């Protein structure tokens, strides 16, 4: 009986959490669409998410592109198929590695910071202070972060795609001895608009997930410093899992034949 009680307790807790998250999502979305808007806040978040994440995303994708070229060469040289390296790099980066790596890196940088900032605001009564100043916290804190996340992740992924492909080019040309113009031409021919578009759509979804998880866990945190720490961890873990999960779903939707 005790065992069943435990199961029941966790099942109820799970459904309660899902319900709270769904309610939070709809409330946040409704505030994204209805005025008043806070353009200064949106711009601040766009700079924070887009501009300041560029070095992290750039470094991640350039090394991913370099490793990809190197490993593809190792494998493909056994079948004398080295010419396919440009194809592999460009498809892998634009379809999968660009959006997923950028998503995961931004989760670590921005999702955690959102959860920590909002969590601290919550436990130090700054969120309550907003309400007493007749400012809806959803409009002032949550909506700008969601809007900025959705707008800036595709931008980051687009830049990341270019840098990742350039990483592959560096290794192919300067380490593996490929002809530069041939490599660029192969890359250009291998590039398909749908691959890039699917990556940018994924990035939009990932941007929403990162901001939503950061905001939800931060906004609902309680219990002082420990609560803020837990919110930060929960936001990174849940956003990372959801990114991988939605990456699979979107890949199926875009490319399953």
């Amino acid at each position, binding site marked *: 009986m005790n065992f069943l009680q435990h199961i029941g307790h966790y099942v109820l807790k799970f459904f309660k959490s899902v319900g709270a998250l769904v309610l939070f999502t709809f409330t946040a979305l409704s505030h994204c669409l209805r005025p008043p808007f806070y353009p200064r806040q949106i711009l601040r978040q766009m700079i924070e998410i887009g501009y300041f994440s560029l070095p992290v995303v750039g470094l991640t994708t350039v090394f991913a592109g370099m490793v990809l070229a190197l490993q593809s060469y190792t494998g493909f040289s056994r079948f004398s198929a080295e010419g396919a390296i440009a194809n592999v790099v460009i498809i892998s980066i634009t379809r999968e590695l660009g959006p997923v790596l950028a998503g995961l890196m931004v989760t670590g940088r921005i999702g955690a910071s959102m959860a920590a900032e909002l969590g601290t605001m919550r436990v130090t009564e700054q969120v309550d202070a907003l309400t*007493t100043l*007749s400012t809806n916290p959803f409009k002032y804190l949550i909506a700008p972060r969601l809007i900025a996340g959705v707008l800036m992740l595709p931008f980051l992924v687009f830049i990341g795609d270019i840098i990742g492909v350039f990483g592959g080019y560096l290794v192919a040309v300067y380490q593996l001895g490929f002809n530069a113009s041939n490599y660029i031409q192969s890359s250009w021919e291998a590039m398909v608009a749908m691959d890039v578009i699917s990556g940018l759509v994924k990035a939009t979804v990932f941007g929403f997930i990162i901001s939503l998880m950061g905001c939800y866990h931060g906004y609902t945190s309680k219990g002082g410093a420990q609560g803020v720490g837990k919110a930060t961890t929960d936001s990174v873990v849940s956003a990372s899992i959801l990114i991988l999960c939605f990456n699979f779903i979107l890949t199926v939707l875009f490319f399953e034949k």
Partner: protein
Amino acid sequence: MTDTPKIKIRDLHKAFGSKVVLDGLDLDVMPGESVVIIGGSGTGKSVTLKCTLGLLELDSGNIEVDGESVVGLSARDRERVNHKFSMLFQSAALFDSLPVWENVAFGPIADKTITRKQGKELAIEKLAQVGMPPEVSDLFPSELSGGMQKRVGLARAIAGDPEIIFFDEPTTGLDPIMADVINDLIVKVTKELGATALSITHDMASARKIADRIAMLYQGKIIWQGPAATIDDCDNDYVQQFINGRADGPIEMAVRK
């Protein structure tokens, strides 16, 4: 003074799980009056303020502001009603990411009733009212001492010319001299604004200084209330034990529960 109370609380009940915090609280605050609620930690003083501001939902009972029930208001109506309020939080609850002047003028700027330039002028004017020089306006909250943060919090509380000001433990954590400075400022600014004040504290020196009327909260109910000048002569054993800070008395059992 009119006969309609500025705030009228009737039969207010609030529990957190099995813990009953407010158990049928009744309280009236007349226009222009300064009422202080005293009581031990965990007796529901902050919960009373938060229920009145709509930060917490009450379980049952009614709260009226200027004769209008504020229970179950829509978000829009709640924002309208909250325009009448402001609050000085125990921890000041200043926004870390904004300089002092933006903190002070936050409400009017967010309402778009003034521009940012006018907001800075307003902030400097309000800071002067609480005895702070203009140079402070460009500092960030983390650069201020606890007493200075309280003063900035007070400047923010009066910036929107509110009709009602709540003071949540205004002198907690301050040295006796700074506490007296804050008490004097509270009396001064509420008189200048003609505002109604509702404060909660367990600092009796503060209560005596800022209150026209004192009410004692114990086990979720107001067990005594009367003019501040009469509290020392009241024959309520609970009040006498509390204001004299004695370990022995009727409250002892509750403390040890």
